[in-house]
């Protein structure tokens, strides 16, 4: 019985999903009512995960591990979900009849991701990963005028299915050479079999599945289209909550391996450099802000990988910190997009013109978020980059860090273009002032305070991430 306490945050989300499931059976649920329920329930969900932060143990024949690492990421995922629910007040992008299903799928997806970060057995990993993917496959095309966006849904599904297939294939090879599906044991067995091509192939293919989720180059092709094609809220969710799960998985997988072997690290380095450079270069020419953020997310996956590939505790801690930072900054940008495009259309950069007049608070939130993404102090994004690079230099990867910094400078160019639109450009036509309700206002202020305070006073958070990284390696 006591064991089920370990599972309580996930159980909470099961109940929450059930609530929305029954609501979706109603003929016509009132959108306002649904929104209120979603906010309250996901808010309590954050509480539930926070209360479960200190839980420790294993479940389901050791296939499911609860430690500080998994619990920290569960909190991050819960926060991301809560924030996305908060900005669903004007869910105009989705047909009203489907709102209940929308919340239902979001909850299921959140649940799946939470289970994913705790999964330490190959099949469990695969099942939870698929559960979250399938919810997203449904969420992405769920948009008014779905004819236009059906392409996105199909594309995402096809690419996602291919990635899953590759991953499953890789996992089967891993099982074949190591005769176990427990990640910890696979990893223990790997060094002896690493001379077999099958083992390397298996590892690389399995990793490809995770990197697909994280949209790391060359597994990124879905990201820009999906960000653009899905509703702003779903895009925000993919960019925040889903990114957290992907990051956790990559860290966990590589962390378990701790295979500080030359060419594996070199492979990761190459991926990281390509991802940063490609993401930043292509982002420069984007006109649609969601596409721009999609390419920037590819670049950020690269930065995060720098911390991970150091294979040190400090490196993992820095990557966790980076994930936290990324969650805050990226959500800040998406919140502004959602509020400015309150009828749910795809926002172009030039439509931000004059935002500083239409809503000074949103303009400031956007500016800080973008400066954070560019890694300018005193924001949390800077501290994240600083820690990641510090970890890399401890291992002596000087060139990698220089490339990373040059990339940060590159990225500043396109972030500045957006900031310029918000602060400098004269609007081509008259836009109405953006309606900022109380929730948005307090959320904006909270995000601004978080971005600056977590950036300037990182000590507390670093202790937490270090403890989480230590739990990971235990």
């Amino acid at each position, binding site marked *: 019985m006591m064991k089920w306490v370990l599972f309580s945050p996930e159980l909470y989300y099961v109940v929450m999903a059930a609530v929305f499931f029954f609501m979706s059976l109603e003929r016509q649920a009132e959108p306002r009512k649904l929104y209120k329920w979603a906010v309250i329930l996901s808010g309590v969900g954050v509480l539930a995960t926070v209360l479960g932060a200190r839980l420790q143990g294993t479940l389901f024949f050791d296939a499911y591990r609860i430690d500080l690492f998994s619990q920290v990421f569960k909190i991050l995922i819960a926060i991301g979900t809560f924030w996305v629910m908060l900005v669903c007040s004007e869910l105009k992008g989705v047909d009203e009849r489907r709102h209940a299903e929308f919340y239902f799928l979001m909850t299921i997806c959140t649940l799946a991701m939470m289970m994913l970060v705790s999964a330490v057995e190959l099949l469990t990993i695969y099942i939870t990963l698929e559960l979250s993917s399938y919810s997203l496959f449904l969420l992405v095309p769920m948009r008014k005028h779905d004819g236009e966006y059906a392409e996105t849904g199909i594309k995402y599904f096809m690419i996602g299915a291919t990635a899953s297939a590759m991953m499953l294939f890789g996992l089967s090879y891993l099982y074949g050479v190591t005769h176990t599906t427990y990640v910890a044991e696979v990893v223990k067995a790997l060094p002896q079999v690493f001379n077999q091509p099958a083992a390397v192939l298996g590892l690389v293919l399995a990793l490809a599945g995770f990197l697909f989720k994280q949209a790391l180059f060359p597994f990124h092709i879905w990201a820009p289209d999906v960000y653009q094609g899905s509703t702003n809220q779903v895009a925000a969710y993919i960019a925040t909550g889903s990114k957290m799960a992907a990051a956790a998985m990559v860290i966990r997988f590589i962390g378990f391996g701790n295979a500080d072997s030359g060419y594996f690290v070199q492979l990761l380095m190459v991926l990281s450099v390509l991802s940063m450079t490609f993401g930043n270069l292509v982002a420069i020419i984007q006109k649609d802000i969601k596409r721009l953020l999609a390419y920037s997310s590819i670049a950020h996956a690269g930065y995060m990988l720098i911390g991970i590939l150091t294979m040190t505790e400090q490196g993992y801690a820095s990557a966790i910190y980076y994930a936290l930072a990324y969650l805050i900054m990226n959500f800040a940008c998406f919140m502004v997009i959602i509020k400015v495009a309150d009828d749910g259309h795809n926002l172009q950069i030039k439509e931000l013109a004059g935002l500083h007049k239409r809503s000074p608070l949103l303009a400031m939130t956007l500016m800080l978020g973008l*400066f954070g993404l560019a890694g300018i102090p005193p924001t949390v994004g800077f501290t994240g980059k600083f820690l990641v690079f510090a970890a890399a*230099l*401890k291992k002596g990867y000087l060139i990698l*860090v220089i490339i990373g*910094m040059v990339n940060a400078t590159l990225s500043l160019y396109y972030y500045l273009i957006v900031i310029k639109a918000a602060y400098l450009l004269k609007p081509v036509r008259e836009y109405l002032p953006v309606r900022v309700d109380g929730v948005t206002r307090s959320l904006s202020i909270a995000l601004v305070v978080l971005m600056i305070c977590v950036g300037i006073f990182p000590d507390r958070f*670093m202790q937490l991430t270090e403890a989480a990284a230590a739990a990971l390696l235990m």
Partner: protein
Amino acid sequence: MASMELASFPILSTILLSTIVALLVIMLIPEDRPKLVKQVSLGFAALGVVLSLLVYVSYDVDKGGLQFVERFLWVQSIGIYWFTAVDGINAPMLILTAVVLFTGVLTMWELETRVKEFFALMYLLVAGVYGVFMSMDLFWIFVWYDVSLFPMYPLIAIWGGTRKEYGAMKLTLYLLAGSALILPGILYVWAVGGGHTFDLFELQRMGLPAHVQRIAFIMLYLGFGILAGVWPFHTWSPVGHVAAPTAVSMIHAGVLMKLGAYGILRVGMTLCPEGLGYWADLMALLATIGIVYGAFVGLAQTDLKYVIGYSSVSHMGIVGLGLATMTVDGINGAVFQMFSHGVMTALFFSAVGYIYDRTHTKMIPELGGLSNTMPVASAFFIIAAFCGVGVPCMSSFWAELLVFISAVKTYPVRGVLAVISLVVSALFMLRVVQKTFYGPRNERWEHIPDVPLALATPRIILVGILVFFGLFPRLILDVIQSAVVPFVSSL
């Protein structure tokens, strides 16, 4: 006794905090009270002047070393400290910052568009500048350094003039490319030093291996050097100066560029003495090219602000040359030059700002004969020009003298070249003065009134400082020397 009490009061943090409080207060003032914004800005700027003067005056020269130290742990696991202190090198820089901010606020008294945002950003910038000058922890030096850079973008792009968006973007990207070298440099030094402290002096005491110093120094030198306008990375500087509004040009050329030189001295040279020895030759070469190049290119300019921009490149070259000599006199002169060039450029831009506000042109051929219609406004520029060419009784005379004496000793050929180019720079300054202010009366500008007293005040203060330290150079050189002598002996 007084200084004993002061020592326990966190006066440096107070200076820094006051700028952040000013920023917050300005942001809370309603949009429709621009007058109040200006008054608040001026009030806090005056507070900064008073506090930094207090620090300067109560700095104990005989004792030397770091004073007003505040140091406590900020982030445990990687060893970041909140570490602020004053020595002979940064004490003058604090005054420079305070004075330029104060006069800058006064200069922008007539600003009308988006007043609140302008002063808020200006305070953010100045917070960064103060932060760099007083921090002795590498993490904070970098944080404040970047904080001082990015407000430049909106400041130039919103309130700027000629080709403002281009200028703003170029400047921002150049400077942040510089910081893309500084951050790896800092982290490299930290990692080699064991990875548990960012304290500048602890790292210095560790004595890094020679090959590390060589790599780290070149990164730090180039990174900070971009901001210091080192040739060939100076091209952002004239463009940025021309595009920026007056007060921003003042702060930027007057203070911000000094951050670059200060960074080379404080971070690069302190941490990597051997690296400095290895690269000093290159530093001297680039500095000399900068001096000569700035003077010659300045000769060909027709835009007043471009003239000043290129003269800045030339003058910052003198700072670089002084640092590269690695002698007491050279570094003394370099720091003194940083100070006096800061005040002088502020005066330059401030003078041009007034002329531009009234005539709406800064093209030399269109002006001419201005001294007839506005003698006082012209006088400010002419005084600054005299200072620029190093006329005795002006503070930069002493600074340049010290640098050139030691440069000729250490690098005879380059030193002599630099001295000769001073003649060229005198030529171009006098040419500008002659074409702009003398010559036939220009009918177009007949109606323009001379500087009113309120607007003349900031310029008078700047002139006063230039002449004062020109007459009593020891008042500043003694302080600088108290830090430079032990510094050079540790090289």
